[in-house]
């Protein structure tokens, strides 16, 4: 068998796809499922641009085989907004100019959501260490940290 059939749940919807045995989850998301929000910046887990949640755990989808997703729940950037309503993190990133080129932004938003889910009131230092695996080359991170704080504050008061 050259391919494997995988049944999974992506952003709440059940999804089935076939993949090669050595295909990464990132490649399957991008090339088989048309979910190109996760980006390949390095393919070696060093940049975080491909970040997704796998059964709630934050992972680099370039370091997961697509076949491993069998029976798993996957959440990607495409599932962060509720219809037309942006997630507070997305809104804060736009409002506070926390992106320039935007290539790292999907990965950072997925990672920041995972942080706020477990720690609704992080310090700047906690944000910086949590996001250390998400490289951004444009912003110098300053406005990213501020935007995460802004969103966290809005979510706490919501």
């Amino acid at each position: 068998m050259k391919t494997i059939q995988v049944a999974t749940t992506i952003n709440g919807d059940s999804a089935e796809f076939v993949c090669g045995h050595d295909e990464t989850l990132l490649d399957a998301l991008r090339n088989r499922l048309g979910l190109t929000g996760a980006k390949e910046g390095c393919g070696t887990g060093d940049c975080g641009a491909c970040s997704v949640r796998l059964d709630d755990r934050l992972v680099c989808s370039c370091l997961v085989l697509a076949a491993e997703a069998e029976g798993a729940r996957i959440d990607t950037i495409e599932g962060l907004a509720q219809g037309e309503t942006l997630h507070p993190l997305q809104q804060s990133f736009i409002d506070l100019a926390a992106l320039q080129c935007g290539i790292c932004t999907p990965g950072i938003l997925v990672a920041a959501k995972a942080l706020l889910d477990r720690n609704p009131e992080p310090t700047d230092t906690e944000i910086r260490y949590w996001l250390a695996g998400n490289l951004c080359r444009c912003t110098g991170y300053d406005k990213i940290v501020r935007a995460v704080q802004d969103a966290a504050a809005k979510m706490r008061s919501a």
Partner: protein
Amino acid sequence: MALDSSSKRVFKVVGTRPPRPDGVDKVTGRALYGADVSAPGMLVGRILRSPHAHARIRAIDTTAAEALPGVKAVVTARDFARLEGDKIIDMGEDRTSLRDVRDNCLARDKALYDGHAVAAVAALTPEIARAALKLIAVDYEILPHVIDVDAAMRPDAPVVLAGRAHENVPGGMSPNVTNHSEFGHGDLEAGFAQADRIVERSFTTAATHQGYIEPHACLASVTGDGRADLWCCTQGQYNVRDICADLMGMQASQLRVTASEIGGGFGGKTVVFIEPVALLLARKSGRPVKIVMSREEVFRATGPTVSASIDVRIGMARDGRITAGEAVLRYSGGAFPCETVDMGAQAAFACYDLRAVRTLGWNVLTNRPKEAAYRAPGAPQAIYAVESVVDELCQGFGLDPLEVRLKNAARKGTKSSYGPTFEAIGLEATLEAAKAHPHYSAPLGPGQGRGLSAGFWFNFGGNTSVSLSVNTDGTVGITEGNPDIGGSRASISLMAAEELGIPYERVRTAIADTSSLGHNDVTDGSRVTFAVGLATIKAARDAKQKMCARAARIWGIDEEAVLWEDGAAKPSGPNAGDFPPMTLAEIAAVSFKTGGPIAGHNEAHADGAGVSFGVHICDVEVDRETGATKVLRYTVIQDAGKAVHPDYVEGQMQGGAVQGIGWALNEEYIYGEDGRLQNAGFLDYRVPVASDLPNIDTVILEIPNPGHPYGVRGVGETPIVPPLAALSNAVSRAIGQRMTRLPMSPPRVLEAINAGR
């Protein structure tokens, strides 16, 4: 176009911070970057690269690869069109020969560096493409290589390319020396004679990479009737078109290039690497071909910065007056001739008003990838060396480094070290703002040091086209031709809204493909907000004039009797007639009945880009037992002329500063004895991560550029210039030893600390 004489102008829209138009697409994952599109029947392109630093290519046998089922095309350098003569491609910050671009995309006679492309395949799947690369047999004759710039200058060094020296390079030097430049004025020896102290130091800086997170990617399609389409991430689609059309033997009009959203460039995406190769493969296979570089390929085979070796000699009087300054810059731009050292030689002393100054620049070939522009190319290295020596002189005399810089600062009327006389510039104001900033007077703890550096960049203008359409519903569409690399669509919309007197929300700016608008130079030289902004303002004025004419026609009065104010056409005075103003929306609504669609446009070569100065203050703490440097506090102060969208001006200042911090502390190209790059990945090419950094404080000053109606200056490049010396001066002061090599990686810092024990 000069600064609007009503320079006390009150801006209504420019200077605000509205959301960027591409924001939602980018936070939802919808924005399409280079690798995000596909085409029916698309093939996968892959490139075979030299494992050798320097080797003659005796033969390439592709027959086995071609015979592999699923392989649809294999190409080598022989597949490029025959070039009738050479030509120079001018990209503002990068001038290079078409022949060199071609030979860099696919090696012809020699592989000149580890990672140099030698052949490429297009296949049905990535697996087949990978297998096919292994079946290509390249017969290499391995040649001696040279990596280090100083070693490459020696007469007995291995010769990278012969016969490439520019005519002003004196005879008798290694053939690797290709370029020479000299700038300056005044009597150096008289200047040094007046000095109470002269410091002379030698510095080296490693090659670094722009480190954009998006690898190069493109999708090419060529049809049998000779037309082609190319989608790619680039800083300049017109430049890509012109180069690719020449290399393919096509007419420019038949090749349409569309710029994708771009995931960072910083200068590194102003050139082509994979695009001509994808076109060759697409033509040969008759199917669309997509090539996406791996991160390893990006490091090995795109364009890092020059590596540099620099000598600086500066004389200072006891009162802090610099009496003379001299610098010799030896840059290597890699395996092909490179003129970046000219900009370094011009920028080295640009911050100072000197009576005697001279800089000499040399470019040297080495077996490294060809340099590409990286934010203020050539300036960070030169200014690092100069600002380090100035700092050492200040320490020696016990003088305040800010006071010394103020005493010697270039100002309006200063004959710059590279020739021109400065117009209104913001260096003094920037230094004064640094002095007044609480950071500068905050106390330091033990083991801590504070470093200061000024920085400079020329900023460019260049060829620009903008088209502006007034829609019948009162909204405005702008078409411009420069990829938006950091929020420029927002800035362009802001300037159009300001000029037309309509809300920002009614303007939408789009980036054109090469078939939809006249030529635009690449997004470089901090030119977009300045030059595209200028063309947008002119296009808007063109449209306003046309709208005034329509109002005049409706009112039955002379065109000259109508003026534009607050977003509406009005009679110019009581004599012109008594008509209620017609807004843009009202004129637009009836445009089809008053003469047809209304549009403004502008095509020009934008001159008058204003130079930009910045001052950075940096506090560090050095662990004396490990050599680790922690950046505690960082402040960027810069003259923006006029900040159109202050958020994105701050973003440029912060991002540039952090790239400079990376350059100063950890980033470097590391080569082994075998001439192969040892750290072609983000694991060991260490860009700063979020936890390495403090917040980056910013102060924007607005000293209007006399060459722009709103006073705008480019801001994108200057911020990477000061961090190198700011960090080096801070570390040197913290450990009591002068650092002269970048990066200041922990082993080097610890070695310096040990030497001082």
